[in-house]
């Protein structure tokens, strides 16, 4: 105990400089805690409570609300099964996941939806248990991996089928957190493969391809996303041909196109960085094996190039996910926009924006931190920084 006091004194008040730093930190800490306590004691969460539905699915009409649940089920199954199959989660990881799910459920479950939520939770547990059971046999595990990959590829078509089949709501009515997630999935799902193509194109020795790819990347990166979105809203319809109703295409689709294009340009540059890090010997080795251009790229160059840039890539994806909140410019009601406008609903909620935005921030944080953990897991499994 004596040692502890001694250590503490020397660390915090050992010299004049340390003493000043300690006192300053204490003052800052005091104001910080004071303002947080002040917020907690005066906050009122009714504005969030009555708008939980709006935050999650936006303007989706109540009679179509049931469409959201199957999506949640498919997603819960896939995510939990994938975590078990590839993630080899430790108890700490599982605790973290359980905590995250619990907090979200506690905030958003209402008396009318608890059965649906319960089903989703059961599917999560079922998925985890059955996957760990399958994991005991290597052949079954390999087969399961293939099924999961196929399901991941089919996920977006499944989501759109569920949302649109049988006179579903107009895409402009999708909103809230659902819209952010759909847009981010589309942007990453299309932007990443496109980005690979543009990166290879830009690194190509053929001048025509190189110039086209360079112009594309630099044009898209040269203007802010907001400008591109506004362009998609007001200018794009004038340029599109007037058949098949293309020029009247929904603003949601226009937002998807722009976000995918934007993501592809940024990922292309990230991947190009990876391509440059591949030693020339690797390509020469591939040539000496008489591999064609496609095989050389797919089997030798890309796996190494992408492995190197995974941290930067995930960081781009997190950025894209947060950028989806800019679609409020296109009159879409995304999560952040809901958080911004709900205090105006009722004079009772005036001045309660901070509460609404806290919940919005929490939801964005959950997804971002999950992506960043995913990045860590992938890095570890590929042995980056070790091998």
């Amino acid at each position, binding site marked *: 105990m004596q040692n502890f006091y001694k250590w503490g004194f020397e660390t915090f008040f050992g010299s004049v400089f340390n003493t000043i730093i300690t006192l300053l930190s204490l003052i800052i800490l005091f104001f910080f805690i004071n303002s947080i306590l002040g917020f907690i004691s*005066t906050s009122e969460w009714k504005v969030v409570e*009555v*708008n939980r*539905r*709006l935050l999650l*699915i*936006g*303007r*989706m*009409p*109540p009679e179509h609300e049931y469409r959201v649940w199957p999506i949640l089920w498919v997603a819960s199954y896939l995510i939990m099964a994938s975590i078990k199959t590839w993630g080899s989660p430790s108890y700490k990881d599982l605790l973290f996941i359980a905590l995250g799910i619990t907090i979200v459920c506690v905030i958003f479950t209402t008396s009318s939806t608890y059965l649906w939520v319960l089903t989703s939770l059961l599917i999560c547990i079922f998925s985890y248990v059955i996957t760990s059971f399958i994991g005991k046999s290597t052949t079954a595990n390999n087969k399961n991996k293939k099924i999961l990959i196929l399901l991941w590829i089919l996920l977006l078509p499944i989501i759109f089928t569920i949302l649109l089949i049988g006179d579903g709501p*107009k895409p*402009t*009515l999708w*909103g809230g957190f659902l819209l952010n997630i759909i847009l981010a999935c589309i942007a990453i799902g299309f932007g990443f493969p496109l980005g690979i193509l543009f990166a290879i194109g830009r690194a190509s020795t053929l001048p025509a391809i190189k110039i086209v790819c360079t112009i594309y990347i630099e044009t898209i990166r040269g203007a802010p996303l907001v400008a591109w979105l*506004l362009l998609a*809203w*007001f200018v794009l*319809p*004038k340029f599109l*041909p*007037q058949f098949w109703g293309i020029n009247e295409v929904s*603003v949601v689709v226009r937002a998807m196109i722009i976000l995918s294009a934007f993501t592809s340009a940024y990922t292309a540059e990230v991947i190009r960085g990876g391509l440059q890090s591949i030693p020339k010997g690797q390509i020469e080795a591939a040539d000496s094996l008489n591999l064609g251009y496609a095989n050389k790229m797919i089997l030798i160059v890309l796996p190494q190039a992408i492995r190197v840039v995974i941290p930067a890539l995930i960081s781009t994806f997190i950025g894209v996910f947060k950028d989806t909140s800019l679609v*409020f*410019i296109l*009159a879409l*009601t995304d999560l952040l*926009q*809901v958080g*911004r*406008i*709900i*205090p*105006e*609903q*009722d*004079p*009772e909620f*005036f*001045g*309660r*924006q*901070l509460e609404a935005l806290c919940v919005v921030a929490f939801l964005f944080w959950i997804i971002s931190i999950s992506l960043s953990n995913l990045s860590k897991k992938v890095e570890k499994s590929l042995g980056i920084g070790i091998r």
Partner: protein
Amino acid sequence: MKTFRFMFILLSVMSIGLFSACGSDAETITETVEVIKEVEVEKPSTLQTVINRGTLKCGVNDNLTGFGVLTAAGTFEGFDVDYCKAVAAAILGDASKVEYVPLTASARFEALGAGEIDLLIRNTTWTASRDRDLANDFTATTFYDGQGMMVYADSGYQTIEDMDGATVCVLQGTTTELNLDDRFTSAGLNYTPLTFETNDPLQAAFEEKRCDGWTTDKSGLASKRAEFPDSAGGPAALTVLAETLSKEPLGPLTRDNDSEFYDVVQWVVFGLIQAEESGITSGNVAAMAANPSDPGMARLLGVPFSGGEVADFQFGVDPKFIQNAIAAVGNYGEIYERHLTPLGLTRSGSLNAQWTDGGLIYAPPFR
């Protein structure tokens, strides 16, 4: 394609102009004029587009209490929103056939001009420059507002002249911001504007006394003052200065040169005002239509009076369009009662009272 064809015709007209300057060629000019007329006729009116589509695309506000907000159920509600419903009921016979497009203050005119919406009802002030420069027409005024200034009661400010050197909180991109500048500069007063995108952070800044005054439309100030949190002193801590800095007539807008649609929207607004004057409400409109008490009421509701002819004003919609609009949202007074009275905006004695009560709410005759 339309734009290209228009450009093409424009170019040909210009070249013909050049030609005719060299040697007059009256016949070609007449031909070209005919072509232009044809194109103008071919361009479908918004009214026809709305009827064909079966829905009305209405640009609204999603964060102005009383005028347009997104409710917890995911639907829109408010004074302006009711006018969207009224127009939809008048044209399509169904007030639910509205596609709401929530717009920011800065994107609203572009959205209307680009055809993303048919009708803009987003507490937009009618000004000369907006009417002339932008590709839109103001139809009528639904609400007469005026810019006010709210200050803390203990600040000692009685008039704008007292506010030399003050910091004023204001929403950006609005006429309010410009009027504020006009008023202070013309009086030779110094001030610092503090601008915000939405009301809530502005209120937070005002509560922290980062600004001495809060200026916006008086309707907005009244509701903000009524609900001012007790922790910051409650309504009693605030005064709205008597002076009105500007005239802010708010109303629906349509695109330029779109007379058919413009007329329908304009007369729906007038119809709801006339309905209040004639004592027709959403509750008694069916009974009144079955048995109109005078010819004027019969003309308004589009029904025959004692076995006579139905007065069809040839608006290109059902002659009963006003009747449908009243049945859907009620008359002007009902809309006001529903959305603005709860905010503490008293109607009697204000500009928004019926002309018979000394206000400016007045409809031209239905004849």
